């Protein structure tokens, strides 16, 4: 088995774990919100929430894991004799695999669940999720590198920024009384193809910065 194959094998396992966690958490949140809704466990109330939750939880998980991966996953793979090139490739592969898996499941959900049950068109939702995932994963890569470079200080700064932006988005959603408000604002500013192109470009830039950093990275465990 070549070095790259071994790296991809482990990346697949790790991505699988993240994806599994996303499914479980999304399902748990769906049930939680159904409970908050007055214990309404009807398919109409439960099923359309699942792809939304997948998008939210998926992005959260991708960001958390992506951010911590530079300090844990990348460092460990290098101590185990992986080349920097293979470590970088497997990281990008892992992100793309995670995004693809969630997107496929979201797509299936949107295709199977009646369209009138959704507040938003299924295809738009999947494309929005793609944009969110690309931005989130790219941001996580850069945050991870900053944390690796500057240690605890960067970690605290990242956590504060994440909390503040989470609070602002949460507040906005709460104030307007609907989860689609943020999407409406974003879509009002730019159209989907432009956003997708920017998302892809953003992730590509983050991946290039990641590679430029990792190619001379020092192992510190």
């Amino acid at each position, binding site marked *: *088995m*070549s*070095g*790259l194959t*071994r*790296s991809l*094998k*482990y990346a697949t*396992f790790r991505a699988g774990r993240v994806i599994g966690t996303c499914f479980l958490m999304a399902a748990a949140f769906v049930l939680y919100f159904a409970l908050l809704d007055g214990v309404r466990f009807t398919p109409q109330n439960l099923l359309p929430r699942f792809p939304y939750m997948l998008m939210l939880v998926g992005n959260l998980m991708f960001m958390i894991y992506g951010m*911590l991966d530079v*300090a*844990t996953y990348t*460092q*460990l*793979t*290098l*101590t*185990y*004799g*992986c*080349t*920097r*090139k*293979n470590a970088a490739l497997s990281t990008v592969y892992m992100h793309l695999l995670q995004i693809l898996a969630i997107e496929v499941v979201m797509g299936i959900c949107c295709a199977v669940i009646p369209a009138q049950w959704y507040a938003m068109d299924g295809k738009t939702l999947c494309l929005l999720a793609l944009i969110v995932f690309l931005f989130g994963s790219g941001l996580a890569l850069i945050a991870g590198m900053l*944390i690796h470079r500057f*240690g*605890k200080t960067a*970690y605290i700064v990242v956590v504060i920024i994440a909390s503040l932006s989470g609070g602002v988005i949460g507040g906005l959603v709460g104030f307007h009384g609907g989860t689609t408000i943020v999407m409406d604002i974003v879509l009002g500013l730019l159209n989907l193809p432009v956003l997708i192109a920017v998302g892809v470009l953003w992730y590509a830039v983050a991946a290039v910065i990641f590679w430029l950093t990792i190619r*001379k990275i*020092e*192992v*510190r*465990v």
Partner: protein
Amino acid sequence: MSQLVCENISKQYKKKVVLHDIDLTIEQGKIYGLVGRNGAGKTTLLSILTAQNPATSGTVTYDGMPVWENQKALDHLCFSRELNTLSVLGPNTIKVKEYLQMARTYYPNWDREMEQRLVAQFDLNPKKKISKLSKGMLSMVTIVVALASKADITILDEPVAGLDVVARDDFYHLLLEEHEATGRTFIVSTHIIEEAANVFEEVIFLKDGEILLKEDTQELLERAAHVSGLAEEVDAACEGLEIHHVEQMGRSKGVTVLLAPGEQIADGYDVTVQPVSLQNLFVALCGREA
């Protein structure tokens, strides 16, 4: 015969030079002891040998192939690092089983049976997080990775740190068994020198980022001696010899001498000549007064 060779390795962090032009050849089938004081550059050197850290200048090759970014060469090497539980992030946040699972995936010759046997022997709990392990348990995890990796050249950084005397004895037995069975090369970095002296075929002393000596342990000990007696007698007996670590108390004096081939302590003087242990020799050569 496989060799790990480093030539003119230097490492500099900002203005601090950690390693100065190191030339070192690691030959197949030997157990090396890498000994140096804290901050001497041991871990940095080992990290560079295994391409975990880049050198500022110089090259490292395995069988003539560059080690840096070369999977073919890296597949023959294993550097099982000392784990740090104090960092907020990093590998200490994962469980032992995940740590081992990663190693299993990445090392091409991983011995699963040996991994399971050692985990059972050391009574390691795979479900425990690395950060929750005691110092001794951490050492055991690194030993499991090093031995089960089956890498041709295996490097252990402070493998006995925190281990009790029984566990240390078990480790040396395991190391010797594995070495005898497979002919693998081991480089063991340690501060507990005395009890490992019999295990090391060759010893490498690192001082202030430079290789002070690299020599067959037995030959080194045979040419080292502690000479004591009246100061003038000691001075006369050791005239022209390489003298280290002079201890003087009143009119009495003690010195550690390192004899070059063909040299000997002069006869006819009233001095006591005693063999020197590896630890005392290290103190004599690398201690503050050396």
